[in-house]
């Protein structure tokens, strides 16, 4: 068979010969000359075609920058009462910005002062650190534990699967906030325990996501091929099956962090975490919740901060889902 009559090469109508060699290539892939597909570039392109993802990513960037540069952005020490340190400071005084016409005789506080003579703006800025750190850590914990449970359940199958999944059902049958309250009460009031509680109640979601990807991939031909090539069970699980769960985990995790930020605010709002020595949005609202009618700014400011943070994760998560799910690509 001469090189010129190679049907595979004729299809593409491409010049004969492998790169840099006189030997004709057996198969010169016609598709290879098309624009090479780049997984990362395509994915990013897809993500940034989603309006909600752009808005979410923007909000999140602002939030992360706020958290990282909190000491630069904050105008005051978030924990220090200003009584006796600043002239003319009034308890729960409303926002005062000199540039917007507030008399310069009064001290400037962008979002006002709280009931302990502390600057609300600085507390809201530092609060971003706590909420983001807890959100990421709690969901990180849930993803790791949930993935392990889901992998075992899906890969081993049988009664192990049954027991593990029924256990997950039991956790899901609880109203999650009450379970979290109960765990924090049992483990002792602290932010770390609140983080763990939120992590624990979120585990079932990730266990289910991973299990269903494992089940779907377990019988696939490429897995059978790996097994035939002598790859170990763990190797198959981690290298061949797990990459399939990455997309749903990323999407679910992004939405989950938003949920975790809501839950941590709820836990500190009901007060199970005890008194905190760091500025945290939920507890800021909780402490001042009786002051709604005479000093609304001390509640509205952290309330808006929580809402914007959760909104950022929800928008990004929705955008990621639309971008990463090939079935939805139009």
């Amino acid at each position, binding site marked *: 068979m001469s090189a010129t009559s190679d049907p595979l090469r004729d299809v593409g109508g491409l010049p004969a010969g492998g790169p840099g060699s006189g030997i004709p290539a057996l198969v010169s892939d016609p598709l290879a000359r098309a624009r090479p597909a780049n997984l990362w570039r395509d994915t990013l392109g897809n993500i940034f075609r989603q309006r909600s993802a752009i808005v979410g990513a923007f909000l999140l960037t602002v939030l992360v920058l706020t958290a990282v540069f909190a000491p630069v952005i904050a105008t005051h020490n978030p924990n220090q009462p200003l009584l006796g340190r600043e002239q003319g400071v009034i308890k729960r005084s409303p926002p005062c910005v000199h540039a917007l016409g507030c008399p310069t005789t009064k001290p400037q506080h962008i979002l006002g002062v709280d009931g302990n003579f502390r600057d609300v703006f600085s507390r809201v800025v530092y609060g971003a650190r706590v909420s983001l750190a807890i959100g990421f850590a709690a969901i990180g914990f849930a993803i790791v534990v949930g993935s392990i449970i889901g992998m075992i359940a899906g890969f081993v199958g049988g009664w192990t699967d049954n027991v593990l999944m029924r256990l997950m059902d039991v956790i899901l*049958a609880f109203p999650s906030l009450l379970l979290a309250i109960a765990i924090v009460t049992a483990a002792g009031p602290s932010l770390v325990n609140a983080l763990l509680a939120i992590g624990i109640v979120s585990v079932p979601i990730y266990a289910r996501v991973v299990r269903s990807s494992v089940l779907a991939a377990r019988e696939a031909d490429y897995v059978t091929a790996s097994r035939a090539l002598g790859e170990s069970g763990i190797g198959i699980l981690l290298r061949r099956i797990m990459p399939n769960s990455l997309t749903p985990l990323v999407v679910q995790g992004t939405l989950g962090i938003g949920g975790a930020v809501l839950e941590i605010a709820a836990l500190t709002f009901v007060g199970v975490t005890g008194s905190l020595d760091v500025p945290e949005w939920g507890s800021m609202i909780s402490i001042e919740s009786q002051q709604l*009618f005479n000093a609304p700014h001390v509640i509205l400011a952290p309330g808006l901060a929580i809402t914007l943070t959760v909104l950022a994760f929800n928008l990004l998560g929705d955008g990621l889902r639309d971008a990463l799910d090939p079935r939805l690509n139009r």
Partner: protein
Amino acid sequence: MTRFIIRRLLVTIPVLFGLVFLVFVLARVVPGDPCRAVLGERATDAVCDAFIVRYGLDQPIPVQFGIYLGQLAQGDLGTSIKHSRPVTQLLIERLPTTVELSVLALIFAIVIGVPLGIASAIRRNSPIDVGAMVTANLGVSMPVFVLGLFLQFIFALLLKNTFLALPASGRLSAGVSVEPLVEVWGMTGTTGIVRGILDFFSGIYTFSAAITGQWGAWLDAVRHLILPAIALGTIPLAIIARITRSSLLETLGQDYVRTARAKGLRERWVVIRHATRNALLPVVTVVGLQFGALFSGAVLTESTFNLAGVGRTLFEAISGRDYVVIQGFILIVAVAYVVVNLIVDISYGYLDPRIRPQ
């Protein structure tokens, strides 16, 4: 159908058993001495020993669990350590508040959420759609208690002297009361289950005041419920609107919808009869799933609006280490959750003939 229901019920038994066990264990690992939590820090050792024996807390935990299961089988949820009253009685008192609030919140969510989702889907990418979806996104992102406080701020303070003013907390105004059914109907002598049921329905003020014609009290109760129901219903509303929208968009692209249009049916008829009916299936699932979330929200709504419902009672029981109340209330909540999911599963059959069990 009966066989399907029975099979579904059998599947839920291990889950319920696991739940009872988990609650039992969790309630017992809560640190702290229940005796001193209830009787005060200065209770003497002798008093505490008697207290512990009285509530069976000296028995090994497996024995306690066995005793508890035995009581449960007889429909006895135990006696609250803190209130010294049967848990069932507490439930009859507190459950109506939560049921009333949750039902109203869910009705609000469905009545507004479904049409909003339909409107968004029909006028895709129009200002209505964009506006509705932005609102829905904000709705799911706002904590219940923040929304509750915002609403109080607007309706109880900013609109204070207008006709839109609404009360910020409680179930009834001072001086207003709803006469219980047993008194209105002259049945004060009844006891047992009948009395329990009557008292339970008396506690649902908007219901009992309406059927006994106490319209003044009814209006007052409704006015008190509006803000909490909006606060609690907003997250489900947003989720329902989004699901309705995406589900209807998918259905509108189906072949049978094209056929219906090709037949020359009016667009409104196509959307309502052919598309929406089929698009509502996932919405039903979501409504069922929202029930659990609704309950988490109820804890926060009840503490924001100062309502003595199940959520707040449970929260107080957890911090007061009242094991018996924790167990009883969680069990009821979980049973309710399981029952709601069962109803959802059964309703599928009616909505979608393809999955109707033979």
